[in-house]
């Protein structure tokens, strides 16, 4: 379970997150929507400790992410993250991309790591691309590679930061399908997304962010059908 309470985040004088309270249960899929610059990416970075916070607390399975003594590298192993840019390691084949972290972080043997990698690549539908270098893959394939790479650490949580926003429209579907598959398998997911159909159909809850504040959170039916906040309604009217 991820618990965020009273979270404030500043970039210099910019107050990017202004008191966020939110918790995500095991097995839940939460989608976060909101216009650009509202602090969605920053929230994900604060959850896995890629950005420090100034006030409040984030805990994952009871461990305080930002406490001094926390082994952040260990914590991140349990929390995969997929970014807007897929960031494949260009010097490694697809298989090696996925096997790297299990081998050096989890200290698996080479054979074991490659085995895990092959399984995860098959999982995301890239079984025929094991020995291909990333620059020979399409954006959609590279993004699925990034998902496999995160899954290879056998995380309990997955964070998606606009995983489909940088993709050509015809490649969005394959990545969303992979995310859907994970949701069906019971993965706990926080998905920052502009794909409203995904948010509506796949999530258990949807949160709307506006200028560093979580304006509204609830089941998709409530957010999409019966939003209480005027900002939410305006945002949804514009994206549709």
């Amino acid at each position: 379970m991820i618990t965020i309470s009273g979270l404030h985040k500043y970039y210099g004088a910019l107050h990017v997150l202004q008191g966020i309270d939110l918790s995500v249960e095991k097995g839940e899929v939460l989608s976060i929507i909101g216009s650009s610059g509202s602090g969605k990416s920053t929230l994900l970075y604060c959850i896995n400790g890629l950005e420090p916070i100034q006030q409040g607390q984030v805990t994952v399975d009871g461990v305080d992410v930002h406490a001094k003594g926390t082994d952040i590298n260990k914590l991140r192993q349990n929390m995969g993250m997929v970014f807007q840019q897929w960031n494949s390691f260009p010097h490694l084949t697809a298989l090696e991309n996925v096997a790297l972290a299990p081998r050096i972080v989890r200290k698996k043997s080479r054979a074991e790591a490659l085995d895990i990698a092959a399984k995860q690549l098959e999982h995301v539908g890239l079984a025929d691309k094991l020995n291909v270098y990333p620059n020979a893959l399409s954006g959609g394939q590279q993004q699925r590679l990034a998902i496999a790479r995160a899954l290879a650490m056998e995380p309990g949580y997955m964070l998606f930061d606009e995983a489909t926003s940088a993709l050509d429209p015809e490649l969005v579907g394959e990545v969303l399908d992979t995310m859907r598959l994970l949701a069906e398998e019971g993965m706990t997911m926080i998905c920052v997304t502009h794909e409203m159909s995904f948010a509506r159909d796949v999530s258990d809850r949807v949160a709307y962010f506006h200028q560093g504040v979580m304006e509204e959170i609830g089941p998709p039916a409530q957010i999409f059908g019966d939003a209480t906040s005027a900002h939410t309604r305006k945002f949804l009217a514009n994206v549709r």
Partner: protein
Amino acid sequence: MNDTLSFFSGFGPRDFLFLGEAALRTLWISVIAISIGTGMGVIFGWLLFEGKLLATLTLGPVLDVFRSVPLLIQLVLFYNFAPMVGLNLAPFGSGVVILAIYTAALVASVARGGFEAVGVPMRRASRSLGMSYWQDLRHVVMPIGMRAVFPAWVGVALGVMKDSALVSVLGYVELLKASQILITRTQQPLLILALAGAFYFALSYPISRYAARLEERWEQ
């Protein structure tokens, strides 16, 4: 008798061997200096990249000095002043020290560029997998960044190998010094300089070919 005769004799097969040996000495001093200098340069480059203010204020200017003062002057100064501080180095040792520092100064800015070539998003991706700072550096940043600046590094290495000719002023008999000795004796400067040039080419060409092949392989 023979010795006096051969003092002013023409260029012979043994002289060719003599040049060949000198070429090996050029290669030897270059390989040592470039290896040490590259190791130091990558560390300096990392300090410049990571240490930001402190390194830029202290290390930066020092490296600038070594980059901008002509190598010949550095060599002569070091060779003559090192004994005063108790460092009694042979010409070879002095040459290695100065060539290595010179290489390090050049490689530092190349390497820094390599570190900078790997963007923050890439590093966030590897850190998000649970890699430590050092694991990220070793397995992601270095391979990607150093490949990006590899052509520039090859340029530095080939340049240093040619510049190693300057160590001849200290009396180390490498390719250039050997040529001068032979020219004095044979009075055939054109032939000998052409041969020396051919030896330098023979040393550089395989390196640039090999580098090009490596780059091609990384391209895929």
